[in-house]
């Protein structure tokens, strides 16, 4: 098992290095450079342009620039944001906790809600199943910005239970402030996960070994727990890992609607203003999140399904 983890960590390093090069290259192939932003609102003299280009090393060959960037990045220095003129580390460090808390909160809502509804739907065919099916269809079809508008006008403006904007302070304050944004972000995912869980459960329920277990006279509860749910969770865990890591940059709309300082909205803003250092750092973060989420999934799967253990060792 430890060899497996080591191997995955090595893979993680290689993946990060490769993607860092791709991200860096892509940003430099894209048209335009930060000079026009830095000199905005002026008729720049050639000296001013040269000064800015030298400051940001824009005249060096791309490989030299990449080498300098990756070398600094390894020591935790991601450079200075072009538009904010601040250290990228500090810029993202201030925003990352909000986004991570939001994604974690939305993930909990997604997993708890999705599993419960999925199980319910699979185990109670008929009216309950149809009701859940209807509800989850509506949830899946509700974009987060629509959910945000509805939630704010009902619970923040109408009832006054939650603040209309801001990330709050302290644990209680944060949970309180992030409840509506997390629901807005997680709502459609609850629907999605419930559907996946239901499909997976229904398929497992039809399997021969489940019939066998029932014929052997095992109580229904144990059949569902040991022979249905455990197997059914394998695809659910896999898809959850992918969704959660992708959420990290899917938060832009919700962050804007709720006035939250996060990295989702920061990424959007940085891409359009060609703020290279910030975009590169966020992309690396996202890749890191994907790889780590996959690692967690890969470690969880053998626990759920003994057949995958052979592969892991």
């Amino acid at each position, binding site marked *: 098992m430890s060899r497996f983890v080591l191997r995955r960590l090595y893979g993680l390093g290689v993946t990060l290095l490769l993607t860092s090069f791709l991200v860096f290259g892509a940003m430099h192939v894209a048209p335009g450079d930060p000079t026009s932003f830095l000199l*905005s609102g002026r008729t720049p003299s050639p000296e001013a342009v040269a000064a800015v280009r030298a400051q940001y090393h824009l005249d060096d060959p791309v490989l030299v620039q990449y080498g300098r960037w990756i070398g600094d990045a390894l020591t935790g220095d991601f450079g200075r944001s072009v538009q*904010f003129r601040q250290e990228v580390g500090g810029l993202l460090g201030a925003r990352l906790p909000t986004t991570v808390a939001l994604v974690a909160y939305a993930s909990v809502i997604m997993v708890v809600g999705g599993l419960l509804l999925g199980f319910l739907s699979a185990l109670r065919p008929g009216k309950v199943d149809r009701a859940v099916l209807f509800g989850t269809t509506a949830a899946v079809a509700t974009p987060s910005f629509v959910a945000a508008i509805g939630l704010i006008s009902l619970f923040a403006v109408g009832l006054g239970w939650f603040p209309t904007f801001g990330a709050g302070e302290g644990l209680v304050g944060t949970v309180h402030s992030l409840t509506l944004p997390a629901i807005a972000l997680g709502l459609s995912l609850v629907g999605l996960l419930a559907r996946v869980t239901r499909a997976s459960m229904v398929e497992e329920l039809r399997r021969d070994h489940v019939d066998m277990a029932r014929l052997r006279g095992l109580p229904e509860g144990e059949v569902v727990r040991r022979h249905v749910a455990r197997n059914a969770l394998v695809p659910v865990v896999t898809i959850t890992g992918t969704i959660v890591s992708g959420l990290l940059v899917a938060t832009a709309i919700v962050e*804007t609607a709720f*006035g939250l300082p996060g990295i989702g909205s920061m990424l959007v803003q940085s891409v359009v203003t060609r703020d290279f250092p910030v975009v590169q750092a966020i992309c690396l973060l996202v890749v890191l999140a994907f790889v780590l989420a996959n690692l967690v999934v890969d470690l969880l799967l053998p626990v759920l399904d003994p057949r995958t253990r052979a592969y892991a060792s």
Partner: protein
Amino acid sequence: MATGPRTARGTVTAAGLATAVLLAGCSEASSGGEDGGGQQRDAELVLTTPAAAGEIDRISWALGSEPLSLDWVYSYDYPPNTVVSNVCESLLRIDESFTPGPGLAESFDNPDPTTWVYAIRPDVTFHDGSTMTAEDVAFSLNRHLDEEVGSYWSGFYSNVESVAVTGPLEVTVKLTQPDVLFNQMMAVAGGVVGKQSFIEAAGEDHGTPDGGLMCTGPFALQEWSKGESITLARHDGYWDGANAAQAETIEFSFLSDAAALANALVTGAVDGTYGVPESALRKVLESGAGNVYYGRQTSTRNLIVADLEGPLGDVRIRQALSLALDREGFADAAIPGPSEPSRAVASKLTWGEGAAGETFAAAWEELPAPEQDIERAKELVAEAGAPDRPIVIAQSPAPVQQVLANEVQAAGKRIGLEVEIEPIAAEAYSALFGDAEAREGIDLFHTTWYADVADPLQIYVNWQTDNFANYGGWSDADYDALVDEALQEGDAEARAEMVVRLQENVTENVLWIPVDHSANSVFLSDRISGAPATNAYLYYPWAAQLGARG
């Protein structure tokens, strides 16, 4: 030279009389229902909101986005200047109507056209309690000349030869040629004074959340929570007791989403904001949470002709398109506050006072009225012949721009011109103002362009041959010479005569298509009052006037 294009918020404009009449009856202003579906086209224009009744502990204010930097050399946009104006002061100071007066300089002298001598006020203290010196002043002005710094205000320093300390409390600026705009700029962000040792120690972090600011204004920067808010605290040692801050703290929250802003204003989570977005205004007015006041502003709405070679190359086509525009219809559909179809690019608020102001007012009456005339427009198109490719107008997702782009397209259709709308993302839209590549293939784009000082000359220098704002590439030797002459004319009235000729030239040639003068808006919750209603908040310590409502 001022660009007002970057943020959609706070970009509405002013018209009407320069009277300081306060809004008669607040409830009338906030009811909204009777006058055209929440619209306030006839609302009165005021200079400032009713004076505050007393002190207040805390005010919460909304900004359209987080300032990229609070270093004044990089502050040339609504969000940063709204904050900086309360923290950092300039050598001169404008009032609510943009009239300049003494600031950190008690007086100034202009012994010859290329020399400006500033007498620095003694006993002004920075927020850390230390005394401001002439060295701090000279250092602050010299930063704009440093290429390494890359000041956004360096354009106003292009005629500066040197800035030097010439006495214990005296700083002398030598110019290479007379430039009347330079001294006027000392009243806005170009003339801000900060503490030398602090700026040097902060280095690249100066003006960021990590480095902070050290200035002399009525408020000091207390906290900048990245991405979330900026909090200012009252400076107790402020030199100008009469204008000391009424509020203990003011917190600026960054709310870029119009709906989020509307909700925050309606629930009282935020007490006020400048430039209430059109889409939020109705909800805010109906809630009764406070009042919206309107004042004039130094900006006007225009369509910039970005390409004078393309389909708009013939002046008759530009005139025809301008004549075909239904400006009243556009304002009815898109502008909730007072608005007036405009005849020229320079706003009425830039005219200034006295004889110069009268000269501009008379010239305004001489300009052709901006009325729709389809027949004349069709004749012009017939004379010039319709261009062989469509006119491309850029459009950001801002609702006002969508309405205007649709109106331009409809205007084109009325007179047989094909107009194509090119949608552009909001943030990418700002690249149009700085990047020639981004303007490739674009013939027209929207701007609310503001002047920093009350002098229309600042607007009309835009069409000098090499000016960065001369997007269409207009070049006329006589025009260039007249601009230079006006820049050297110290007498305001004589200068106004020249600027009027520049204005005629730009208007006749339709180098930009003027659309409207709309009003600046400010929302104040029922807790607070006292903020100016004009866009002087960009450079004037406006938040010091904010206090409890009577």
